[in-house]
């Protein structure tokens, strides 16, 4: 008995991936090989199910295929060790029997999430491994999303697993203490996946996997599993409130459209109200964190019907909190923009001076870009043009560069338009 493959089937298959991996990894006590075996089972399912229909027990099917791969792997491992004159029993290799329905732990996906986002890994390897082991994506899809060759991505994932193995992370749910300690790393990885999707979701990259949606899916799951954390809810709210503006963020030729110039009727109202709901719930938990504050700022923007209705005083107050709670050059920069909107551009320029002495950020294009906007607001076109051009030569983003060069050219040709542009925030 099978069911036909339809639009929701891929989602189902992806959700099964970490559950299957949990079962197989626990049964064979070998996360590294189990992860490869599950990947092979996933690829087999992607090839067979659309043709032959979804098996009656899809999870059982995947576990069976992955276990068969594991058994083959274990057998060849025994053969290898025997060749090396080691008694197989000494190697403690056990080939368990396949029992489909038992041995399933609802926490498996969460265990995997904490394993794959382990602080021992670099961000790029944690991202790749999380997308494969927890997200159920294929190596090819992940490689395509990051625009690197498939073997390179396969290597990155395999090295990530080696690092996990070497650092001896056990396959079990972290203790409440470990969980609290490692949760920020998990959230950071999910945040980076979202960001990668957010920045690459314009025109030319539309054929790439939708990493922003994937991050939201994983984030929804994380919130379901850790319902008591205000920051988990805060990050989900931030993603929803940011993603809701997606359709308005770029124009027909992929040009960037800054927040104050976006067609707000294109914003996704349902996404905004869901984000506001999640945020309100998070804030009621009482412990304010950086993701909740950023989500609150996004919500203030999202709730303004027109750019000129934006409650900048509230945004400024939120950035002041954020600056105290989790200071960074980018927060200082955004705080200066909010201050400029409330107290005038001179105030913003004054606050930006604090960043000049920052060795890593002092020469950053965004500092020059924000200065350019503030000089334009003041009416100092010459300084504005100079800073737009400085920013354009420093950015490593083509849409950003096009935007900045166009701003400089516009001011050069039409100085009358000065003072009308707001600092750009997306």
């Amino acid at each position, binding site marked *: 008995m099978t069911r036909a493959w339809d639009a929701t089937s891929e989602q189902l298959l992806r959700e099964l991936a970490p559950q299957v991996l949990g079962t197989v990894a626990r049964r064979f006590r070998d996360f590294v090989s189990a992860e490869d075996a599950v990947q092979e089972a996933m690829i087999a399912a992607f090839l067979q199910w659309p043709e032959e229909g979804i098996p009656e027990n899809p999870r059982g099917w995947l576990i069976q295929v992955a276990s068969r791969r594991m058994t083959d792997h274990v057998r060849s491992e025994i053969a290898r060790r025997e060749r090396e004159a080691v008694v197989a029993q000494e190697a403690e290799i056990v080939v368990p029997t396949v029992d489909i329905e038992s041995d399933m732990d609802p926490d498996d996906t969460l265990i995997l999430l904490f394993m794959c986002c382990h602080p021992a890994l670099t961000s790029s390897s944690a991202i790749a491994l999380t997308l494969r082991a927890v997200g159920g994506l294929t190596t090819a899809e992940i490689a395509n999303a990051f625009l690197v060759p498939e073997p*390179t991505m396969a290597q*990155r994932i395999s090295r990530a697993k080696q690092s996990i193995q070497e650092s001896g992370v056990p396959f079990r749910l972290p203790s409440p203490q470990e969980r609290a300690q490692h949760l920020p790393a998990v959230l950071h990885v999910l945040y980076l996946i979202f960001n990668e999707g957010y920045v690459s979701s314009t025109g030319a990259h539309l054929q790439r996997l939708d990493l922003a949606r994937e991050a939201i899916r994983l984030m929804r799951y994380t919130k379901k599993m850790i319902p008591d954390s205000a920051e988990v809810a805060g990050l989900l709210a931030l993603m929803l409130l*940011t993603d809701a503006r997606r359709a308005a963020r770029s124009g027909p030729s992929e040009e*960037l459209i800054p927040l104050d110039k976006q067609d707000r009727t294109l914003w996704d109202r349902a996404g905004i109200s869901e984000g506001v709901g999640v945020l309100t719930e998070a804030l009621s938990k009482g412990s304010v964190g950086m993701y909740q504050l950023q989500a609150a700022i996004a919500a203030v923007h999202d709730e303004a019907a027109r750019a000129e209705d934006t409650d900048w005083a509230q945004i400024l107050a939120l950035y002041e909190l954020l600056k105290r709670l989790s200071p960074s050059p980018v927060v200082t920069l955004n705080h200066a923009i909010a201050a400029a909107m409330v107290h005038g551009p001179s105030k913003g320029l004054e606050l930006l001076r604090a960043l000049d002495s920052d060795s890593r950020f002092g020469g950053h294009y965004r500092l020059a870009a924000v200065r350019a906007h503030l000089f334009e607001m003041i009416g100092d076109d010459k300084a504005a043009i100079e800073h737009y051009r400085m920013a354009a030569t420093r950015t490593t*983003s083509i849409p950003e560069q096009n935007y900045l060069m166009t701003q400089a050219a516009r001011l050069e040709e039409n100085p009358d338009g000065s003072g009308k542009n707001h600092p750009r925030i997306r």
Partner: protein
Amino acid sequence: MKYILMMNTMKAGQGIPNWAVNDLQAHIAFMMNLNKDLRSSGELVSAEGLSFPDQARLVRAGKNGVPITDGVFPESKEFLAGFWIVDVDTPERAYAIAARASAAPGPGGAPLNMPIEVRPVMSAPPPEMM
């Protein structure tokens, strides 16, 4: 973040065709090893070696877009000999890879210390939220 590492030779070919067999083999093995390591670290996007300048042509569009080619370059000119594109976590890592490539062995096994130009590859807009 992706970077391109461009390896320039001082002069056309830098005399490589005239090296001793041992030197040549050591150099080739060094480059193969570098690529192998970059592949296994999951950082290599692509690596290409370019032909000697003898094969290079400068092309311009003539009337009606017909290509006009120009060849044979002076031996003193600096040439792009090859490039790597790597996907790494930090610029420092890209510089470290470039330094390793720069020290490829030359005649007598002495490091060549070739200049390697490292530049970020332009990408989609960078993260904005934090």
